[in-house]
């Protein structure tokens, strides 16, 4: 219940945060909403020597119309997403998925940037951004770069962010009127998904899987099957292709594969694919 001691750096700007990361290297962790990191620290499963608090960078808290995309500041909280009128119009799936993260208290504090940067395969928002074909913007000492969501998740709790990079913005395409579905399968409302499936149909169909491997995954076999004219049911049969789900208290590997197929079919049907 009591984290190990650490040094605390409060960043007054993105540049300060990036500089602090550069200074402290691997010893430092970024703190945004804290709802991924602090629970680990309370159990001493994470013991960073330095916390760089970016929670006050209000200039990174926004949901903006950016032409054919929606631009979302990394410090935007889940509660901002779940109540956004702009998202309701232009990207209702993201709004809905944000509403299913954790519980209201978590959504009041947790941020989309924190959720994506933590890169937890069991998280809801990474899969949503993957299915939408989003883009992430990272800022480092040498300026900004864009990273496709499909390139972002590199390993278990690992992302393409360099040690001295800060995720600043998430961009998702405007998809008004697109069919979509998010199937979250869990045992209690507040829990992580045992398996989840995000599907969005906007010309082609994007499908992403939650908790089916070490990273959030794009269900490429399903997408290909659909592109090749397969029915939703046929395509869904390929949902677990290329996945490496783990076994835990809630599911065996085999059950996860089964759930992925069932939930993908339901998602595709609901999305009208």
């Amino acid at each position, binding site marked *: *219940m009591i984290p*190990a*001691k650490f040094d605390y750096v409060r960043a007054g700007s993105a540049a300060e945060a990036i500089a602090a990361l550069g200074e402290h290297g691997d010893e430092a962790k970024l703190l945004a909403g804290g709802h991924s990191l602090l629970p680990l620290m309370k159990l001493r499963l994470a013991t960073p020597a330095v916390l760089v608090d970016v929670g006050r960078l209000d200039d990174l808290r926004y949901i903006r119309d950016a032409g054919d995309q929606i631009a979302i500041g990394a410090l935007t909280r889940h509660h901002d997403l779940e109540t956004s009128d702009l998202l309701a119009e232009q990207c209702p799936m993201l709004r809905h998925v944000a509403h299913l993260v954790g519980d209201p208290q978590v959504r009041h504090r947790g941020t989309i940037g924190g959720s994506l940067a933590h890169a937890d395969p069991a998280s809801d928002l990474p899969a949503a951004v993957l299915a939408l074909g989003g883009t992430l913007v990272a800022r480092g000492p040498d300026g900004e770069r864009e990273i496709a969501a499909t390139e972002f998740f590199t390993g278990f709790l690992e992302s393409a962010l360099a040690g001295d990079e800060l995720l600043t913005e998430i961009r998702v395409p405007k998809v008004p009127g697109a069919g979509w579905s998010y199937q979250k399968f869990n045992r209690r409302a507040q829990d992580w998904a045992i398996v989840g499936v995000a599907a969005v149909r906007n010309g082609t169909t994007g499908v992403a899987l939650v908790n089916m491997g070490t990273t959030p995954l794009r269900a490429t076999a399903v997408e290909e099957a659909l592109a090749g004219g397969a029915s939703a049911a046929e395509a869904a049969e390929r949902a677990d292709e290329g996945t490496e789900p783990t076994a835990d208290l809630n599911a065996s590997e085999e059950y996860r594969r089964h759930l992925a197929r069932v939930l993908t079919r339901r998602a595709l049907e609901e999305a009208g694919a």
Partner: protein
Amino acid sequence: MKVAVTVNGTKQEHEVEPRTLLVHYLREVVGLTGTNIGCDTSSCGACTVLLDGQSVKSCTVLAVQADGAEITTIEGLASDGQLHPMQEAFRQHHGLQCGYCTPGMVMAAVSLLDENPAPTEAEVREGLEGNLCRCTGYHNIVKAVLAAAEGAAS
């Protein structure tokens, strides 16, 4: 590290270790022990307080993160000896037994109605998904929150 916050309308300023959780700060430094601790994984919601008007789990916020914020705890709800309408609704509908989850549950319910003044039963249940109670089976808690919403509307 210095932390300055307003708790239930009173300004507080203290020196704390950065690792001090907001809940420990409120209980042990400010001395307001109404906010309880029921778990160590941000699951149970017993420590729920309002941070700048929104419900948060004070076990998952560092005191230093709350620097400059307005905090309302269970002690700040009743005024002039009168229970807050949510507290009164919990009493009228027997929405508590051992009372340990109650401060957090009441604060979560206050925040819920602030965001959704006329919730359905299902919305109340979902809105309290982050607060665990082991005594009541939730039946009377849900009734109390619905009654508080109705009372506020009438």
